[in-house]
């Protein structure tokens, strides 16, 4: 039930912070999403959406950190195998 789906904001409409709406693209399916909880969000941002609300703007730098970490781990495990 706590599922949240990533999507990309195409456009934003509305001036009232609590009714601001974004058109969000989920891999080809576009839905209108409430942006009240992500006032910093702008078109082009990726957001996680839960029951019609964007709950966070995905931090793209942090998103890559898993893979940097993996590269380090990859080296470590390969090193271990050589021994």
């Amino acid at each position, binding site marked *: *039930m*706590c*599922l*949240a*789906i*990533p999507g*990309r904001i195409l456009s934003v409409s509305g001036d009232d912070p*609590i009714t601001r709406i974004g058109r969000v693209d*989920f*891999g080809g399916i576009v839905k209108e999403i*409430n942006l*009240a*909880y*992500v*006032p910093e969000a702008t078109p082009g941002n*990726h957001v*996680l959406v*839960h*029951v*019609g*609300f964007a*709950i*966070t703007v*995905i*931090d*793209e730098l*942090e*998103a890559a*950190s*898993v*893979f940097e*970490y*993996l590269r380090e*781990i*990859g080296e*470590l*495990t390969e090193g*271990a195998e050589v021994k």
Partner: protein
Amino acid sequence: MKFRDEYRDPTAARHLAAAIAGTVTKPWTLMEVCGGQTHAIVRFGIDELLPKMVTLVHGPGCPVCVTPLEYIDKAIEIAGHSEVILCSYGDMLRVPGSSGDLLSAKALGGDIRIVYSPLDALVIARAQPSREVVFFAVGFETTAPANAMAAYHAKREGITNFSMLVSHVLVPPAMRSILASPDNRIHGFLAAGHVCTIMGYEEYEPIAVQYRVPIVVTGFEPLDILEGIYLCVLQLEAGRAIVENQYSRSVRRDGNRQAKAVMREVFRVIPRRWRGIGDIAESGLGLAEAYADFDAERRFGPVRTAVDEQGVCISGNVLRGRSKPTDCPAFGTRCTPEQPLGVTMVSSEGTCAAYYRYRSANAGSGN
């Protein structure tokens, strides 16, 4: 889909599994809190990638499962009023009450509608002012800001034909309850990434210290979960117990400030009974006094506490991580998603449903 598919890469998953295997020297038992994580673990076979010394047990994080029986009964009762339109998330419709579920109440003529968002219930209330629209507000902290916003809008717009039957639950008190139990066997937690997206993780820091358990805020994709397990095991092997944030692309330490502000405005913390588990102090949310006019219990009478459920179902132990679904004599035979005996088989995120779908010998094709 960007920010999803890349976290399902099998080669990277094998690297992480190898790193976990190379780290572990002692047996450890970890609990993933969230039903969404349980589902991913069983679906992608993450538990089967792990060394034998790492055991995953599944936690209580399925709000549909822990919503008390008496709230289901109350929702069915409210839906029986001819002027009422009862709106609910689809997951709740097949959850058994003491006699029947919302789906059968709908079949008997109740005007029960599945909504995707709580704001959809408000749209119905605006469009049909002569009807009483009641939204069945369940969920953990992830869903609370969305549900709170429905009440916030209703108050702001003066919508008088809208109310909410609120059965919200909070994760940290449930974790404390599990850790404080004399037979606790959990060494570390994977905390629920979307709950923490809303709340942040400051409130987990005293739990890690008090009970000396590592808590790793973890996402929902296979690489997230494997990295969460790896970070947790690294801490355990080093004798450390702190809160770490694996899911940093979504979670900040102080969470979502706007969402927490609306939650604080609309809700207050109350004691809550968890189905299958029992009463847990300060573990729920109810409407704040300023929003009492939108409380369905004020309009339709209070929820009466039901008697404890009896029978063969072991969902209470499954929800606490004490039993696996396969420990149950009824699993997959007398109890299936089509004919469920208990909540953990009903909800699509319930642990029994996940095992049935992906593990049982007579499971469907799954995906």
